[in-house]
């Protein structure tokens, strides 16, 4: 990302005089109920480097991504919002409402055209002319397209924006559609998970601010540093898998000893995320550590891959820590996967196949 122009520079390029600029600063100060002394301070700030504006939109979703974001311990969410970037629109947190809120979208486009980050939580439904998600009387997808036209890059927060997630599970009645299938002419950084880990969210966005570049992505568009490896390969219970020590059912002796959760449906072997390394809520625990198998919530269409309690069968056991998403994905695409056939159940495979065909038909 190139260094940002200051607000003042942008205004001058738009033909606005110095005099008008100073007047704008005075009006801003007056609008806030501040004394005339503040106008000079605001002018100074606008003439120096601004914080990168972020527009955070919400489509069809459950707001778990926002809730996760504010759980970040390092950096604190408050510091991110108040000091590191400028959260110029986020209908979950902003003080304004109605037309005062919507005006801020156009203001951002006018001031920072091509400069702001568009953070998308949730996805647009396309059925019913988009009216399954209405904002300011119009379909959400219109707002998304307009803001995407003017942004620098898009962060697709969570599995809704990245893949479609729960409302896109079959039969996807609203035709909820992930961001990259609606916006095809802007870089889309997928940060999947339902929700993503808080520190991964703040990590991705502060990476972009600190290094002034987009994070390197894998073939599916996810930041490699957080989504490059399987949970299974860095799981602290992995030695029990290798030793054949499994939880046979919940709350049994094996469960109390921390054995591998593979047989009760853990999706760690097919899930690429940072849970087993970064962990959750300040590194305290993560699903497998607390006794439940991974749901695979960072993976595309994880809702339609059979029961959460059916063991996965289509993964490479020999991949090891070197098995990145790209390598394994390539193998799976090209040839039949090496399965842990001993644990395979025919019904699971059948269910998975059915799920896949349905998904395609609604895509």
């Amino acid at each position, binding site marked *: 990302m190139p260094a940002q122009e200051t607000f003042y520079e942008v205004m001058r390029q738009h033909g606005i005089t110095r005099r008008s600029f100073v007047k704008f600063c005075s009006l801003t100060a007056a609008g806030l109920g501040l004394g005339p002394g503040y106008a000079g301070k605001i002018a100074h*700030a606008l003439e120096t480097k601004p914080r990168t504006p972020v527009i955070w939109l919400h489509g069809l979703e459950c*707001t778990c991504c926002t809730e996760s974001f504010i759980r970040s311990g390092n950096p604190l969410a408050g510091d991110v919002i108040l000091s590191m970037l400028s959260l110029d629109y986020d209908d979950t947190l902003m*003080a304004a409402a*109605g037309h005062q809120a919507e005006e801020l979208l156009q203001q951002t486009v006018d001031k920072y055209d091509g400069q702001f980050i568009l953070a998308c939580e949730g996805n647009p439904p396309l059925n019913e002319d988009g009216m*399954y998600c209405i904002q300011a009387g119009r379909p959400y997808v219109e707002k998304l397209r307009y803001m995407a036209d003017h942004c620098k890059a898009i962060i697709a927060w969570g599995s809704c924006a990245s893949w479609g997630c729960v409302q896109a599970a079959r039969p996807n009645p609203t035709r909820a559609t992930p961001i990259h299938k609606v916006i095809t002419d802007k870089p889309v950084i997928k940060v999947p998970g339902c929700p993503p880990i808080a520190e991964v969210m703040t990590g991705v966005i502060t990476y972009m601010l600190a290094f002034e570049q987009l994070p390197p992505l894998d073939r599916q568009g996810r930041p490699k540093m957080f989504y490059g490896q399987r949970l299974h390969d860095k799981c602290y219970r992995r030695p029990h898998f290798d030793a054949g020590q499994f939880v046979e059912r919940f709350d049994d002796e094996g469960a109390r000893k921390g054995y591998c959760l593979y047989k009760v449906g853990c999706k760690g072997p097919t899930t690429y995320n940072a849970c087993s390394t970064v962990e959750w*809520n300040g590194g305290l625990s993560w*699903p497998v550590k607390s006794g*439940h198998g991974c749901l695979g919530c960072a993976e595309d269409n994880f809702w339609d891959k059979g029961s959460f309690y059916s063991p996965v069968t289509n993964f490479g056991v020999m991949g090891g820590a070197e098995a990145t998403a790209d390598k394994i994905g390539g193998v799976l695409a090209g040839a039949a996967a090496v399965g842990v056939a001993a644990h395979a159940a025919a019904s699971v495979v059948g269910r998975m196949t059915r799920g896949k065909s349905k998904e395609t038909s609604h895509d």
Partner: protein
Amino acid sequence: MTSTVTPNGFALDDAGQRVVVDPICRIEGHLRIEVNVDDDNVIRNAVSTGNMWRGLEVILKGRDPRDAWAFTERICGVCTGVHALISCRSVEDALGIDIPRNANSIRNLMMLAQYTQDHLVHFYHLHALDWVDVVSALSADPAATSALQQSISPWPKSSPGYFRDVQNKIKRFVESGQLGPFANAYWGSPAYKLPPEANLMAVTHYLEALDFQKEIVKIHTIFGGRNPHPNWLVGGMPCTLNINDVGSSGGVNMVWLNQVSDIINKSITFIDQVYIPDLTAIASFYKDWGFGGGLSAKNVMSYGEFPAIANNYTNESWMMPNGAILNGDLSTVYDVDPRDPEQIQEFVTHSWYKYEGGDPARGLHPWDGETEPHFELGPNAKGTKTNIEAIDEGGKYSWLKAPRWRGNAMEVGPLARYLVAYARGQEDIVAQVDGLLAALDLPVGALFSTLGRTAARGLECSWTAHKMREVFDDMMANIKAGDIATANMDLWEPATWPGVAQGVGFGEAPRGALGHWINIADTKIANYQCIVPTTWNASPRDPDGNIGAYEAALLGTPMADPAQPLEILRTIHSFDPCLACASHIISPDGQELASVKIR
């Protein structure tokens, strides 16, 4: 219409200027409010439109009932875990599964932690800016702010230097000219009544609460693996208790139990030394603003929550009781039974759905419910299908249905729970309520207001924080007695289930009464239905013209300036709206997925 009186006793008049607020921000999901104000800028008509629909119940059909908690948990990430718990209860009810005592305690701890965090975040981050003027805090005297804080609370972060640091931080932020989430708001409005020092104190705690809330949810992380969206299990909880043996790091051991205990202590301290004193201080400046009561003075309802006895979901067990009050008569509290088809019904006359066959204006119990999305604007709507300028509340106007209890629109949520518990004479609640009213020198009637709703939520937050201590100590005693079971797997295998089963899970989410109704056939979900708190509160009108809690609460409120919807936000926020929860579909029994018509 122009002028009319609804069957539930509210005068409506749509003659005056129409004001549209869309989006309502600082809520979960997408909500539109329209009002008409008279010549004195007093609200005389109000219209609540749910702006989204996701169709989760349709998606659940044909799934494994043991997976339903994970799907329904994604109904809402703000009240995370709440739907998962109610879903587990519905499946356990259908299949006759009893959960172990420890699982009940752990579920209670997780639900109590959820209430505590959710209420705290609601007060400071979604609601406070309706009462607190951020810009005014810049002119506060830090020494006077310190004196104010120390006069109302022993909270140690109270020195003049501390408040000066926070004030400087806000100053630098404002001087940057990039106001982020505070831009274009209503600062300086005459509707704000706090002195600068109280504003600075509240803004300081806005920041402190943002940091602290993430600690409370670590109780979810320990027992459920993460937050938001921790893991649950039909039959109990997925975490194990291993206090003595090898491999205890694979279970909840003494290290994690100590951490839970510590979080509980810190939560109690924060709520009682920061939230409650702030709430009382802010309320004391708004005592004259008694608007927003609406339905609360008439009809309120609670299903009951926090079972003290495992598997007992009756008033014998509920720590927060079940009950309904009608017409403001606190002397009679009715029992609420979510199984009874005569008690709970949903109507779609003014909702963007239609009923097939029969009377389209009839009400249906969730076990017999049916729905087909049917988006159409009323004949008097302004604008077009995809550019709505004004809603026509005479036609269909919301993605929410209209649920009714024995035909009555009901308010649900913290105030409803507190009124039911107060009317039932539950001592701990009565003491809390009477204590706050005495401190503010207000009569019981003052509870029926926007501020009453906000106060009840604060009192409840303290109640849930303290209740965590009680539940935790009880669980420790049970573990000490040798019981470490956390899950009952006897009926885990689908082969053990009956061919057909039907169940209901119900309880109270932070925002109010929540029910999940499930039908199971051949080990799969045949039908799954939810009626959630915001559907009750934000409900559109029913066929008889009864208005719901949001619409009722806005009536009679004077606006300082109709162009600035501060008073509307204040009252709507007092309900803590959650629209992702509220927008649902109920599919007919046995209906095929394909029959949901998609255009």
